[in-house]
């Protein structure tokens, strides 16, 4: 496993070297901590290229492997008409 030394910069250094620090985050994929009075107050994180990883990073999807495609799913037909189920869902959404 690769290990990185944790990177941190103060606010003044961030102001002076912002472009360089962002380029470092992009290049290494490593987060950089921003410190104020020696306390970590923020982080600059890389944005994942993969959509699934982005959704995980945003907290929209729980961490884990990306599910396989629906197209590989084989299901036995159970009812030729799902209208009662669909109607119940629509009524649940709209009933006053």
């Amino acid at each position, binding site marked *: 496993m690769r290990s990185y030394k944790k990177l941190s910069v103060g606010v003044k250094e961030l102001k002076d070297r912002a472009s360089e620090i962002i380029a470092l985050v992009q290049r290494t994929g490593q987060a950089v901590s921003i410190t104020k009075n020696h306390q970590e107050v923020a982080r600059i994180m890389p944005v994942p290229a993969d959509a*699934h990883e982005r959704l995980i990073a945003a907290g929209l999807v729980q961490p884990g492997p990306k599910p396989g*495609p*629906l197209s590989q*799913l084989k299901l036995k037909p159970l009812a*030729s008409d799902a209208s*009662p189920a669909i109607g119940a*869902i629509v009524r*649940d*959404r709209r009933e006053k």
Partner: protein
Amino acid sequence: MTLVYLDSSVLVAIALGDPRGAQALAIVGSRDSCTSALSPIECQAGLSFQYTTAPGGLPAAEQALDAILDRMQIIQLTFSVLVHARTLVRRHRSGIGLRTLDAIHVASCGEVRAEVGAGAIEYITSDRRQHVAFTSEGFSGAFLL
């Protein structure tokens, strides 16, 4: 690659083998799909109603639904989704009469769009008013009648 958002009305059609489900699967193709964490609850309500008079068939339908959900990215009901949904209700309640649950589906799609980019998500629904809600927020997709 585009991500396809399937709402509950389409998920039950797929689970039961309704022709609208086959249509939805054809549209999705090999693309990744997602739905809201709200959908399993709505789907359960739908399936339970479908099998009210023949409850023996319900377990197989639930199993099919679970198999579908296992192959989807489930969009969590995060604080940002709920805030987004509130904004949508404020914007569309008096116009298209947007309801709370409709707003949660559209907001879930909206939060995904904010992360993966405009044009990177489409929707499929069998609910006409949900379709109107999606289009009013600029999403493209399919309404399966």
